[in-house]
């Protein structure tokens, strides 16, 4: 390895380094250029820019950010093209392997690519590394370890990028939006989708999408059920399905099983850089400007809310870009803006949730800067009918919503018109369900 001094000498200087060229990173890069934020370098470890939409061939992308609807690959190309046209430099096949803040406040990132090792010195960094599905092992599903056990991400790449056929019977674990998408992909690959299997008492997708997928291929949804064992040597023979109400099990022969959803942010770089991690989202904790706990480091997209739709991730990237541009222009945002020192050492105020709510994003209040789209996004871990959300600090009511229907895996929103009322020296803001 080269010494730190040599690396420093060879360092490349940019105003902003964006890590990840998915919808959030690409949208941020374009917005940064549009706002005159200087040199913007986007690094992505994949060989093509665009992120997950590259291998998601259904339509519906671009609705809320580009105001037109297209397939995933077309959307990925549109975002990458727009970022490049705006003057951002896109470097694919390039992995950011380390990130640290120097004493003078600049960010040093280590990059690996076929061109070699490089250190990039950036004024600001935006982390937009996205999220992935928890695989079977992380869900602790016991049994054998045969081939044919996939996540949606791997399935889609095998089928749409690798043109793989998957004849035979298939089961899909999960019954939310992405699960139906996996079922459609399996059908395209020649599989007979036996069922979608969910531990919940009902499915969680939107009616239009569900009908499109399920009616066309007549796929049933097995509710209150889980995969309790995987069987097969080499190849998958089938799985044991347990009815969670009765405890009875049955063996279902199949050649493929796809574990969908159960998202986790790709937070390795954030954790290695010692950023504060939010216990709910498991991504870096971010304030409403999308600043992390490290000055000069921002985070956006599904790294901070796994997983929202691509257009929401894109708008999150755009929002972070505006915060970064403001910070580069001298307007303090993020932890500094909260005036931690000015307020007598009061720290940023965490925003926490209690069950059945699973997470909220953003999850720190340091200023009255509104969050992306002027609202917090939350997830519930259970179904609830007509439930209001309340935000309180030290028992004091800050906000109460109209009744919401809570569905696991689907977003619920809390308008952020109460930020002015948060006391910087007070306790955490708790967002809870109330009747």
């Amino acid at each position, binding site marked *: 390895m080269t010494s730190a001094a040599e690396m420093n000498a060879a360092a490349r200087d940019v105003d902003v380094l964006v890590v990840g060229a998915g919808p959030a990173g690409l949208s941020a890069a374009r917005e940064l250029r549009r706002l005159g934020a200087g040199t913007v370098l986007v690094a992505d*470890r994949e060989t093509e820019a665009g992120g997950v939409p590259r291998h998601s061939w259904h339509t519906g992308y671009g609705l809320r950010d580009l105001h037109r609807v297209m397939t995933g690959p077309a959307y990925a190309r549109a975002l990458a093209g727009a970022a490049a046209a705006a003057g951002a430099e896109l470097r694919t096949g390039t992995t950011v*392997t380390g990130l640290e803040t120097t004493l003078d406040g600049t960010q040093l990132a280590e990059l690996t690519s*076929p061109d070699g*090792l490089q250190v990039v010195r950036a004024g600001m960094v935006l982390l937009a590394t996205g999220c992935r599905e928890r695989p*079977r092992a992380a869900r*602790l599903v016991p049994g054998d370890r045969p081939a044919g056990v996939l996540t949606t991400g*791997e399935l889609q*790449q095998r089928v749409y990028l690798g043109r793989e056929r998957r004849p035979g019977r298939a089961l899909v674990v999960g019954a939310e939006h992405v699960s139906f998408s996996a079922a459609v992909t399996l059908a395209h690959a020649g599989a007979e989708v036996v069922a979608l299997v969910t531990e919940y008492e009902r499915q969680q997708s939107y009616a239009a999408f569900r009908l499109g997928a399920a009616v066309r291929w007549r796929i049933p949804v097995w509710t209150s059920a889980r995969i*309790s064992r995987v069987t097969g040597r080499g190849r998958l023979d089938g799985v044991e399905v347990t009815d969670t109400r009765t405890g009875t099990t049955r063996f279902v022969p199949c050649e493929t099983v796809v574990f969908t959803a159960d998202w986790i942010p790709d937070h390795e770089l954030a954790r290695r850089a010692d950023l504060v991690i939010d216990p709910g989202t498991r991504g870096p904790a971010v304030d409403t400007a999308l600043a992390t706990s490290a000055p000069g480091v921002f985070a956006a997209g599904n790294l901070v809310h796994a997983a929202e739709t691509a257009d929401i991730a894109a708008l999150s990237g755009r929002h972070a870009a505006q915060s970064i541009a403001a910070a580069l222009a001298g307007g303090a945002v993020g932890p500094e803006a909260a005036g931690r020192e000015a307020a007598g050492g009061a720290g940023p105020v965490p925003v926490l949730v209690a069950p059945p709510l699973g997470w909220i994003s953003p999850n720190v209040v340091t200023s009255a800067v509104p969050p992306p789209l002027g609202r917090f996004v939350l997830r519930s871990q259970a179904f609830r009918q007509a439930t209001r959300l309340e935000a309180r600090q030290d028992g004091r009511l800050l906000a109460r919503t109209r009744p919401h229907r809570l569905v696991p895996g689907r977003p619920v929103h809390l308008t952020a018109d109460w930020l002015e009322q948060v006391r910087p020296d007070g306790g955490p803001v708790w967002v809870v369900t109330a009747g």
Partner: protein
Amino acid sequence: MTDRVAGPGREAAADVVIVGAGVVGTAIARTLAAYQLDVVLADAAPDVGTGTSKANTAILHTGFDAKPGTLESRLLARGSALLRPYAAAAGIPVERTGALLVAWTDEQEAALPGIADNARRNGYQAVRPVRASDLYAREPRLGPGARGALEIPDESIICPWTTPLAFATEAVQAGVRLLLSAQVTGLSQADGGHQVTTTRGPVRARWVVNAAGLGSDVVDAMFGGNGFTIRPRRGQLIVYDKLARPLLGSILLPVPTARTKGVLVAPTVYGNVLLGPTAEDIGSRTDTGTTADGLAALLAAGRRILPGLADEEVTSTYAGLRAATEHADYQVYVDAGQRYACAGGIRSTGLSASLGIAEYLVAEMEQAGLTLRPRAGAPARPPVMPSIGEASLRPYQDAGRIAADPGYGEIVCHCERVTRGEIRDALASPVPAVELGGLRRRTRATNGRCQGFYCGARVAALLAERP
């Protein structure tokens, strides 16, 4: 290249056929390869090291806790002493993390002096007691309630996959013929030698070495049987994400007592954390499945030993079968009359003891009449294996290697940071990967936290292009 063996029509009999290409069989093969012998190394699987050798706790033991006076104690100490320099020369990842044998109860604390005494009787002197306060200073994330510990400073972590691969590579480069996907189905005598029937045809040889692991009693029975039966003991393990690695410094061993065996927590040379194993006596020789009860028991034990594990992601779970027998010791012996050598009943210390077992068994074979003439020319040296451990510089970190070959800068498996250059090398090595499992064991590709979400399709495509 792999199957450097002629088919059934081959005229000359080999000098030795080794049945089983696990860590013990490959160690015996590379030991015999130093001599002027024609050696065939056969295995039922399509790769080396696919049985007990691939799924264990990946610890290079000192043998401090062996039963003094047993062959296992002796060969473990000798094997461990041989493997350490061999690993350093061959690039087998090893980290000398040391181990702490942690006592959590009065009973366990009372057992520590006896364990220290046992270690000294095994010839291992460096064991020393550690007070609770010092223990927590060294392992601050250890769960509350530890009474004290014994430190075994030479216990190390090792790559269990590279070890048999290095032995097999050295053997193949020295002329040993590797016969894979060749399950032994029978044995007969012809022309004063053995004829071993395999699913890939017969192999004739003057000597047969039984290193068949979980099948070693079946092979032994073909020679009349010496009275041991494999009683497979299953060990389930949980692998935690690399972000859990800072939670511990040393291997944290349980204190075995009359009532419980306990589980260990150990770092791995890949930068993960391992929790396990269970110890279940099962009837099956093939059931390497994990169970809900087994995983739940491990999670409960892990919460107590290292509570921080509960907040970390699980990367993988697996189970391995140890070739336990009704005997407390190895079943390693030579039958001169039948020209048969047995290395059976190697339960869970085979990785550490492998070179000691090979050295001992080959010496016994010589005693029984096998002529050992060193090969002409320079003595064989350990091969240089691709280093897949975190303690050494990985290709993606190596500016010089990337400059010489940009394939080492092209990361394909992001979680494990495996490059296209390494995958290409593994598919073209002297003992090449022929399927995904073999590629994983040679490179770590797809072994990481995403389990193929990002790279599974790409790795499958690269595998399909193999020469």
